[in-house]
């Protein structure tokens, strides 16, 4: 088995676990935890392809050898920003509705 296949399967598994967590838990924060796991799985995918992908020096007219790693670094930064804003929203919702249970928030009227 290709080493790249192993990493891609692990990334797919982490993505599925994160998705299951985001879809099945009641607490809003655990949904955000699931989203973070999904973003991390995507980063693992990027880095795995960066490592095992074709070397750009061998081909002409190809992007530079850093594209995968740069993408992953920017993705980490954006995920951190999104986690901060998402958790701020969860805190404010808790202040308003006194609960973080997503099943209890089924009305649009505040």
């Amino acid at each position: 088995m290709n080493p790249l296949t192993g990493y891609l399967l692990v990334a797919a598994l982490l993505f599925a676990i994160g998705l299951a967590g985001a879809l099945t838990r009641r607490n809003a924060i655990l949904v955000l935890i699931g989203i973070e796991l999904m973003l991390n799985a995507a980063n693992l995918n990027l880095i795995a392809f960066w490592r095992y992908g074709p070397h750009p020096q061998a081909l002409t007219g190809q992007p530079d050898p850093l594209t995968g790693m740069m993408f992953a670094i920017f993705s980490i930064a954006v995920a951190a920003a999104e986690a901060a804003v998402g958790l701020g929203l969860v805190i404010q919702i808790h202040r308003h509705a006194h609960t973080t249970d997503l099943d209890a928030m089924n009305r649009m009227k505040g």
Partner: protein
Amino acid sequence: MSIVFYVIAALSVAGALAAVLLKNTVHCALALTVAFAGLALMFLELDAQFAGFAQILIYIGAVAILVVFAILLTRGSETPKDTVYSRNWIVGLVTAAAIFAMLGWAVLRSAPALPHESAAPSVTVMDIGNALMGRYVLPLEIVALLLTAALIGAVIVAMHEKESAK
């Protein structure tokens, strides 16, 4: 496939499973930290040193602590009245299983066509710095703007409103 890869992969998957299955929310957050650490080790195994250390610094050093603070501020560590899973949890599980099956099938079917270079691209931190200031300067500035907006936005969203403190 070396033994190191299997150990690190098992650690990450175990951490992720614990993060979505445990009942106590703070335990979930700590298991998420273990999953992040496992992922950072996988980045290091893939010779992406800068990405691995950035993962530890940002995710474990900041995002995990943020999640834990949010759990404490929303009283998430108290035991819930009902179960911790939502009413129609089976839908979520089936969806996730279907997506994993599809992704796994796609990866395994395309295994012969996947690239497999044996040598890692040699990237030093100086190359990353030059790239960030050269070719990727526009994404860098946009991410800086995004982070500033997120910072101001998070502070405003989570701030105490004075008139609602009655």
